[in-house]
């Protein structure tokens, strides 16, 4: 178990190095010069050259890469070119809305998707299954921006139950944050529940035809206990995988949803950084998101060992 964990952490370092390499060079493939963008149309060639020197953009690209690697290896993500503050600080400021949005969305998706998937499998081919499968198909194909706009129109504008957009005043109480997140989290939850429904249904159908489910029935257990304890307990591994991956994707920032609901999250930060060629921010944000993604994957693997004893040994 510990050996396995150590090996996983080792491969994590390699993965992060590959991510860093790709992030650095892909960012630079895009045309455009941050110095020129920053100084505007009136800037002279000398001004631009001076600014490029300040940010080290004049050095050969490989040298820039090695310098940057050294920095991030010590945990320093550098200085934003436009925001006039450390990248890590810029990310930290935007992390809260994204984190809670991801958390609430995944919760909604799991709370909707898992029971629906179980019901769909238990009553396979019946009306419940047809309705659930139909709705899941619909949810998977609805664009989140469209559903977001409908929700804003209905629940915020017409009914006035929730704020239209934004994340409230700085320092507002947590409940107000929750109100601001309710609509975007529901939208993302519904859209992402589709995959969870399908995985839960498929996994439960596999398990329900297993011999040990018949054994459980032969013991005289109630159907609820057979389904929830004996079948669901065995169907968990793929379900945890898909829920975890959904969470990991959402931590990267739901760019479209954050934009529609005007949430100042990571997704927003990355979009504006890309538009301004703010290399340090783009790189830093992608490194952090990739790091979280990898960590969530590691967490999923650790959770496996709790739900499936066969993985433990």
């Amino acid at each position: 178990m510990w050996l396995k964990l150590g090996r996983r952490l080792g491969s994590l370092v390699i993965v992060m190095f590959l991510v860093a390499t790709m992030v650095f060079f892909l960012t630079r493939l895009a045309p455009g010069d941050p110095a020129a963008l920053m100084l505007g149309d009136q800037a002279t060639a000398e001004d631009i050259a001076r600014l490029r020197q300040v940010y080290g953009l004049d050095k050969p690209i490989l040298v820039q890469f090695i310098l940057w690697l050294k920095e991030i290896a010590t945990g320093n993500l550098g200085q934003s070119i436009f925001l006039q503050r450390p990248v890590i600080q810029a990310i930290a400021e935007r992390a809260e809305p994204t984190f809670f949005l991801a958390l609430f969305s995944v919760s909604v998706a799991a709370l909707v998707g898992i029971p629906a998937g179980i019901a769909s499998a238990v009553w396979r081919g019946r009306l419940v299954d047809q309705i659930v499968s139909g709705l899941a198909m619909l949810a998977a194909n609805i664009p989140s921006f469209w559903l977001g706009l409908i929700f804003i129109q209905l629940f915020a504008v017409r009914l006035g139950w929730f704020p239209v957009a934004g994340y409230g005043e700085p320092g507002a109480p947590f409940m107000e944050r929750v109100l601001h997140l309710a609509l975007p989290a529901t939208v993302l939850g519904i859209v992402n529940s589709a995959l969870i429904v399908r995985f839960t249904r498929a996994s439960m159908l596999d398990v329900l035809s297993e011999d040990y489910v018949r054994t459980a029935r032969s013991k005289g257990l109630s159907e609820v206990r057979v389904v929830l304890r004996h079948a669901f307990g065995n169907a968990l591994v793929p379900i945890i995988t898909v829920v975890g991956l959904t969470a990991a994707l959402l931590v990267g920032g739901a760019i479209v949803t954050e934009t529609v609901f005007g949430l100042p999250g990571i997704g927003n930060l990355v979009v504006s950084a890309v538009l301004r060629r703010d290399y340090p921010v783009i790189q830093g944000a992608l490194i952090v998101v990739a790091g979280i993604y990898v960590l969530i994957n590691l967490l999923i693997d650790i959770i496996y060992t709790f739900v499936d004893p066969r993985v433990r040994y």
Partner: protein
Amino acid sequence: MNMDTPSLLSIQDLEVRFRTEDGEVTPVRGVTLSVSPGETVALVGESGSGKSVTSLATMGLLPRPAGRVSGGKILFRQRSGQTVDLATLPLPDLRRLRGAEIAMVFQEPMTSLNPVLTVGEQIAESVRLHMGLGHASALKRAAEMLDLVEIPNARRRVHEYPHQMSGGMRQRVMIALAMSCNPSLLIADEPTTALDVTIQAQILVLIQRLQREIGMGVLFITHNLGVVAEIADRVTVMYAGQVVETGSVGELFRTPRHPYTSALLNCLPARARRGEDGRRVVQSIPGSIGKVGNGCAFAPRCGQATDSCQAGSVLLETEMDRSVRCLRWREILA
């Protein structure tokens, strides 16, 4: 059948239908058999003869909604003395009997135990439900059961998961699970087929020992006549969903009346060696169930068949404690 002891289980003219994509099939059509307390009845037949379907129907475990009992009765005498028809018993009442008074051991020990629960939890779950014990005493009972089925270090192994055990050990666990609430009827569906020969023998001895101790009736489903000779008191032979012959082990092995039974017995290596022309194999493939016409289902494969065999339905003829479903058995024997 011994008339003094009323039957524990009495299946009468059972018919089971399955809906399939090609329409309805009838894998079991007219199965009649009985099991008395303390008696072991072997249900014998080749794959697809309807043995397992008969046992699943008895437990009410036919795959739903495809399968259903479409005729006949499955009478079971409860501990209270009341006799119920398992085929029509409401599900909640059936659940009270399952695991408590009727228990089942399945063919596949490798897949019949839940991989994410310890074997102790799986036994204790049944004990808690039917015997009303608390968590700790149920687990203690589970350990006692493991001890009873001769699993070494039972108190430690009660906390192990199925994947930590061999196939033979798992089948012992299945038996411990089935026996945990002292059932009066055990249905064993090919419990030794998936095991090594040496382990098979151990499991058979174990089932016999426990049966003597608890005094339960056993319906033992198998296709292995060697096993039948070893453990059964009486034998019921099935072919294409029907009972073709019933009798005590001694009589049936000595003087089989149905040509199919004779053919099966001739497949036993010991008999084949004694025979003149070596081993005689039952020829061709078994008749497709559900599409059998009126006459004797075995007729197309039977060396003794005449035109009259395929003319009309053949009834199960009962004489003393033997039954046979063959028009010509007297001629053939003579």
